[in-house]
């Protein structure tokens, strides 16, 4: 699946909720489910700055694709992270750094991703793209 297709599947998934409580309950559930990063990467060098909640992000390279793992100390942040990872992970570097993130808008969580937000998800997306760019330059993919 392309990033675009994966985004669409997330949007579809959220379309069934018609009030904010269900949406957030689902996000919280997603957030709780996932131990999404290896403990050894939960250190300062993986910490993303500018967040109200702390976010750790790690990127691995698996043949052609980037594989992201991440965690946060806030569960809603973690829920959104798990969506971001579902969409962004297992894609080629160039696919990642060319992707847009309007799907977050489309599921009605856009207040989390406006560039002026202090919650760090913007920084996280930025960091994901930086990783992808670095890998692209290194591997040409």
């Amino acid at each position, binding site marked *: 699946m392309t990033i675009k297709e994966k985004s669409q599947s997330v949007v579809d998934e959220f379309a069934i909720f018609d009030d*904010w409580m269900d949406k957030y309950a689902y996000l919280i559930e997603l957030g709780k489910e996932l131990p999404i990063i290896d403990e050894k990467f939960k250190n300062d060098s993986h910490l993303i700055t500018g967040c*109200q*909640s702390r976010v750790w992000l790690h990127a691995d390279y698996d043949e052609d694709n980037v594989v992201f793992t991440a965690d946060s100390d*806030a*569960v*809603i*942040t973690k829920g959104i992270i798990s969506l971001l990872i579902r969409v962004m992970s297992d894609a080629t570097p160039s696919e990642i750094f060319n992707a847009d993130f309007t799907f977050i808008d489309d599921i009605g969580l856009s207040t989390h991703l406006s560039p002026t937000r202090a919650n760090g998800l913007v920084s996280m997306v930025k960091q994901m793209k930086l990783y992808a760019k670095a890998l692209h330059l290194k591997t040409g993919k």
Partner: protein
Amino acid sequence: MGFKINTIRNDFPILSTKVNGKQLVYFDNGATTHKPLQVIDRVSDYYKTENSNVHRASYNLSHIATDLYENSRKFVAKFINANSYREIIFTKGTTESVNLVASGFSDLITEGDEVIITVMEHHSNFVPWQQLCKKNKATLRFLPVLKDGTIDLSELEDMINFKTKLISITHISNVLGTINPVKKISEIAHNNGIPVFVDGAQAIAHTNVDVSDIDCDFYCFSGHKAYGPMGIGVLYGKEEWLNKLSPYQYGGEMISSVNFESTIFNELPYKFEAGTPNVAGALGMEASLRYIQDIGMDNIIKYEDTLLKYATKKLENIKGLRIIGNAKSKIPVISINIEGLHPFDIGTLLDQMGIAIRTGNHCAQPLMEALKLPGTLRVSLALYNTKDEIDLFADALAKAVDMLT
């Protein structure tokens, strides 16, 4: 005029705003307060009928604007019981006031000197001193905060020594709500010949501020945290101290005369007001302080204290909830920690329910570090808040906790 909460609420147009389809419950007054029509209209009216630059012109409109501006200064002087209008400098806010004085002290603090602040300072009354000390090779020392959110005066006396050049302390903590004994601190400091700077950002709207009684050497606050406009604030300083400090910015009214080689600076207070001042801001701030005065600070204190007690009691029912800061003498600022839950998660859900509340470190990272907390959920109330709103908040909080556990 007494305290009529419905009349008061009607003065604040924004309180009838809807958030996510729900009535706005605004509990982030520590960050900024809303503005009554009296303030909003004062600013508009100035621009509609009296607008002009001040001080330098010889025409009528400018005379009017100048008188209005200088009368605002006199009003502020009276409001905080300063000795003279010369002790009132208009700045853009608390942060600028602190930076102005820190810049002035740059000439007075040298290698090996010490500056004392507390662990509970807002970054604005911390980083300017930290950077000054770093630049001048002085030491910044921190008075610790006790478990209940107060400071220990005997510890302060122990920290003072012959190298201490300044004590700077917040009048009221923006995280803990603690009202610090600034009068007592000034006394201790002056017994040791040390000047005292007081950050009144959280005090001006919530308690009586009498700089002559406190006897501090400097005091400052922001208009926007006391129902006034943004972009305006005050630095009070005793004349003898203000005279000791070099000007901060250069240009405009602060210049008395100048030639190619050198400049003679104007006298107080103009010496510290460079560039075209924010006249509309000063008039708006005067209107906001008059608004407070008309209601009566004692009435406000009494009402806000009822809210504080009511909210504190309500919150005690929530499982795992702990209030950070339990000083006897405090304003209605309630920092909350709920075991196992991240403040950001709670704040996000509360926002969905129309409740505007602050989460995070509240620009007081050193305090968070000392408390070993990632942040708190902070309720900060103002004179227009109500018990009903507190009920709504408590219910919403219970619901959020429920969703998260």
